[in-house]
């Protein structure tokens, strides 16, 4: 033991631990008691989050391949095969989240307590720089996941950046690394996220901490004790000499405790929630992606979405610039006077309004009511309130003509446009026709899309949308005489002979038959669907198979083509049949079987029909619809 003590004494003498380091961590700080003492922990909590992010980032940097073509696969490997890989990704993600939250609270705390005033103005400015460096590193981190959302995050940033006057195209090219997504796009963001931004963060954090030591941590503000630059330094120094307590351990224990609590929080969230999921391979040509930023930027996403188009450039460019300038210059024009929030009503209002704005915009961004609803399913008959006639046809058109993408009836549909559940009580037929034919600021004109009879049916349906319709459900509507058509129902096919409509349910990959290349469990022509000529067929198509699949109707002779099947009827294909939809997705479509003959229902993804994914559709001269499957 004595030998150890002497070895330590020698080391201490050479290095100066007792002479230099201990006095630093024991430097005097203003004594505090009660809840206010805990207000000071958020700076160190931000630093703890950053350290956890750096430590978790190092193994990721050792396993991630920063190449546009391989980044995604390397993350899949980290997720599934690297020991602790998935957990470290989760810790890295939640430590980044923690850093964003803590830096926000820390900034609001410093602002509310007026700690940015003399003599701590420079430290505030350094903090603002740290805020934007943090936002940058967290943003580039999401991009580095380089999944479909990552690709479009870059694309959307580019489209904003190019609006910068004069140098817009340069900004775009610098972000992309060229004039399109190239091999260096990911490498550049990797260099930013792993080298440039961490380097700058280390340097500015060091400077920030030095400034805390040099100017001293601010004492809690008191009403009636304004900051006077002429006398503050002397007053503060005397106060410390008289009442100061050593930072370590009198105040530092709170920083350590809260820091450990943050670390525990990160770990628990990482274990229970897990790493952010990958959205799919980074293929810019895939049109099914719905790009969204991670949650801490949803408020900015919502602010941009809600800005009127005429003001967009101002909001996109001038507002961030104004915010940066405002934040940086705050201690220049407000560096003295009262510090207590009770004497600073403008500070309180600013914090309140900013907090409310960020909170409400985040909620709105999560809901995104300005996005069309691509998953809208056709209105059920109990909502339409009719099973035939103009109102029924209009109710079907409400889905097939695309109204339901943006409008809702009875809770079905999109939020982009006004809710039409009770529109019949608000607008006359003439109003409706004008609106549908002319469109509006956010609505296309349907003049070239709807025929005259379709328009009449649609208006009849919309006119029936009143509060009274709810009480009339179950009765056939009185605008047309009750039909006597025969109804058919089966698991897969329903029809109505009076309205000449049929609804076909198609599930790709329903069973493992033919290695998954089946519709409803049957392929190679085993399932035969028949509809009489002139029937309007709605297809509810969904995919339960492991591979992407699509569905389209093609002439029977063309079913042996490898790909690019010609459509037998307009609209008789699910969206983007060459790529298909993935498991769990739905892509409904409809068509009119206006020509008799023998057709094939095929999967349009290249090679699938040849592997057996085809069945038979017969359009007959008369008779009734039917669907025949071989009995097991």
């Amino acid at each position: 033991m004595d030998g150890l003590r002497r070895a330590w004494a020698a080391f201490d003498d050479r290095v100066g631990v007792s002479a230099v380091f201990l006095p630093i961590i024991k430097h005097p700080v203003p004594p505090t008691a009660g809840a206010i003492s805990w207000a000071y922990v958020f700076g160190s909590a931000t630093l703890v989050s950053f350290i956890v992010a750096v430590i978790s980032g190092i193994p990721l940097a050792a396993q991630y391949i920063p190449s546009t073509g391989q980044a995604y696969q390397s993350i899949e490997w980290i997720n599934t095969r690297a020991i602790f890989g998935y957990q470290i990704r989760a810790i890295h993600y939640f430590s980044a989240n923690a850093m964003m939250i803590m830096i926000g609270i820390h900034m609001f705390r410093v602002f509310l307590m007026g700690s940015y005033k003399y003599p701590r103005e420079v430290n505030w400015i350094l903090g603002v720089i740290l805020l934007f460096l943090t936002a940058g590193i967290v943003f580039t981190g999401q991009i580095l996941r380089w999944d479909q959302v990552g690709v479009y995050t870059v694309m959307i940033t580019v489209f904003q950046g190019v609006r910068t006057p004069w140098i817009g195209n340069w900004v775009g090219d610098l972000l992309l690394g060229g004039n399109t997504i190239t091999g260096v796009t990911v490498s550049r963001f990797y260099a930013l996220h792993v080298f440039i931004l961490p380097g700058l963060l280390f340097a500015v954090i060091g400077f920030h901490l030095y400034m805390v030591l040099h100017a001293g941590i601010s004492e809690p503000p008191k009403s009636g004790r304004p900051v006077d630059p002429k006398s503050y330094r002397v007053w503060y120094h005397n106060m410390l000499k008289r009442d100061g307590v050593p930072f370590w351990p009198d105040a530092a224990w709170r920083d350590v405790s809260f820091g450990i609590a943050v670390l525990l929080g990160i770990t628990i969230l990482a274990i229970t929630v897990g790493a952010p999921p990958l959205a799919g391979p980074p293929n810019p040509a895939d049109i099914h992606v719905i790009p969204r930023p991670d949650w801490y930027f949803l408020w900015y996403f919502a602010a941009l979405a809600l800005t009127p188009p005429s003001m967009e450039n101002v909001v996109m460019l001038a507002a961030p610039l104004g915010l940066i300038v405002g934040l940086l210059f705050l201690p220049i024009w407000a560096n003295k006077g009262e510090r207590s929030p009770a004497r600073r009503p403008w500070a309180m209002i600013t914090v309140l309004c900013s907090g409310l704005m960020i909170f409400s915009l985040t909620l709105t961004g999560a809901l995104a009511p300005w996005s069309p609803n691509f998953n809208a399913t056709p209105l059920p008959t109990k909502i339409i309130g009719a099973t035939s006639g103009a109102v029924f046809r209009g109710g079907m058109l409400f889905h097939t003509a695309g109204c339901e993408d943006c409008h809702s009836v009875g809770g079905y549909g999109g939020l982009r446009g006004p809710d039409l559940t009770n529109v019949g009580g608000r607008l006359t037929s003439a109003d409706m026709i004008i609106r549908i034919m002319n469109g509006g600021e956010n609505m296309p004109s349907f003049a070239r899309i709807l025929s005259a009879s379709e328009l009449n049916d649609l208006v009849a349906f919309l006119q029936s949308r009143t509060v009274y319709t709810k009480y009339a459900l179950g009765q056939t509507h009185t605008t047309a005489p009750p039909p006597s058509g025969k109804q058919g129902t089966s698991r897969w096919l329903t029809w109505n002979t009076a309205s000449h409509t049929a609804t076909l349910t198609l599930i790709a990959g329903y069973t493992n038959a033919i290695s998954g290349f089946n519709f409803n469990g049957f392929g190679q022509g085993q399932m035969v669907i028949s509809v009489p000529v002139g029937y309007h067929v709605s297809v509810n198509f969904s995919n339960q198979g492991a591979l992407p699949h699509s569905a389209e109707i093609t002439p029977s002779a063309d079913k042996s083509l490898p790909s690019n099947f010609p459509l037998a009827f307009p609209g008789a294909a699910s969206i983007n049949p060459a790529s298909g939809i993935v498991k769990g997705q739905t892509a409904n479509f409809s068509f009119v079987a206006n020509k008799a003959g023998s057709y094939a229902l095929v999967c349009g993804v290249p090679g699938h029909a040849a592997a057996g994914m085809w069945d038979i559709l017969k359009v007959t001269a008369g008779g009734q619809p039917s669907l025949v499957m071989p009995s097991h």
Partner: protein
Amino acid sequence: MGEYKAPAPYTEERRRFLNRLSLALSALGGVIVGVPFIGSLLEPILHSNPTAWRAVGKLDVFQIGQTVEVTFLNADPLAWTGVSAKTGAWLRRDDATSFTAFSIYCQHLGCPVRWNQQEQIFLCPCHGGVYYANGKVAGGPPPRGLQKYPVRVHKGQVEVLATGVPYTY
């Protein structure tokens, strides 16, 4: 330990000169390191961007009046760009010999638009931008219509000119 033999101290004038010399040499070091450093980071705006015609299918595969998505490689992809080297376009055959190719990037903020055959419109999932079949803005925030790629028919193949993301204002 004997006396430390100190050389004659520098004059203030010498100190002033040495100060300036050190600063000037440091500045020179900064330039020597800085020029290639900054130049390399700015490389994307200094190099020229090629274009290339890309085949997207045989002429008779495309039906007149139908709009389909085609994918093709960028003009000058590096070998390690992988699946991200692909670009998409909505291709419509207008008549026997002419085509229109729309870029899939919405002109508002670049999200990919979806063609809806039933409604004959392009819909953007991000902020509700809508375009008519001819690419003109039907509603929503896009400031201009969908951009087009040049298309030609060459030796029985339909080819689209890969020109890079159409964001030039």
